[in-house]
């Protein structure tokens, strides 16, 4: 099998070498290089005539400011969401027109069922802060 591969390669190189006229100054091992690039030329020429985009990200003040603003908005939203879903976390959940603002169903989510300690702490805080 190995011999067959070598034979095929020799025929290929031989054919290529025949197609070119030998220059007196030409490197005698040129056929090795020719065989190497002949098998890989499609991959090497894939970007010919194109622009290869190898860009980097430079600092931009306006983008930096916009990103910071967006991060602030996202953070505020996450805090409000957490507060709405845990009634005894900071105090009362965020209600609007009698409905929990961050709950899709218009009812307070009971997914995060408060513990007895949590309920007592919530009631105590509620009494202290809102009454």
């Amino acid at each position: 099998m190995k011999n067959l591969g070598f034979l095929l390669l020799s025929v290929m190189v031989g054919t290529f070498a025949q197609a070119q006229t030998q220059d007196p100054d030409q490197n005698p091992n040129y056929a090795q290089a020719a065989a190497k690039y002949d098998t890989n030329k499609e991959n090497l020429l894939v970007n010919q005539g194109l622009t290869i985009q190898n860009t980097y990200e430079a600092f931009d003040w306006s983008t930096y400011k916009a990103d910071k603003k967006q991060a602030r908005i996202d953070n505020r939203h996450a805090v409000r969401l957490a507060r709405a879903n845990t009634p005894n976390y900071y105090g009362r959940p965020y209600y609007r027109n009698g409905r929990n603002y961050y709950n899709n169903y218009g009812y307070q989510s009971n997914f995060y069922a408060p513990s007895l300690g949590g309920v007592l702490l919530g009631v105590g805080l509620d009494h202290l802060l809102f009454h």
Partner: protein
Amino acid sequence: MKKIVYSIAFLGTLAFGFQSCGHKVSRVDVNEQIDISGKWNDVDSRMTAEAMVEQVLGEVWLSNFVKEKGEKPVVIVGFVKNNSHEHIEAETFVKDIEKSFIKSQRVRLVQGGDKREELRAEKADQQTNASVSTMKKWGLEVGADFILQGSINSIVDAYKRDKVVYYQVDLELTNIQTNEIVWIGDKKIKKTVRN
């Protein structure tokens, strides 16, 4: 009644006014310099093309080749690597350089890349579909003497709202037989931007 009619007319005029203010398109001269964001734009591309065309056709590599070989050089366009901080398509200015080669009739140009693949596919199709007298033969393409390659680099210096952007576009012609670089052209552009 009169009051209602006047009100409706007024509101209609107002609505029409707002609508016409929202979207406006006008044609401008392609050579007009319009800078909006400060990023690479058509003006930069045009400036690069003009500088490169002037340099590539005006330097000694061309006369040297003609003197040595007695014929016009054949050029193929390779790739341009964009190492800058912005998305830049080099084709906008490389095409202008190619056009100048053909217009000047001093440099011959051969097709490369995808377009060459399409040409070869067409040639392959002709072998079974075209008449024998019009069928194009394999192995008679013109081999290029030189390859045009390049790079785009940038440096950005920014502090708060102020920014200085520097672009450097380099193009080079290399002899395919010897790997010798016979020409390097560049265009440097520096901009100040205040956001």
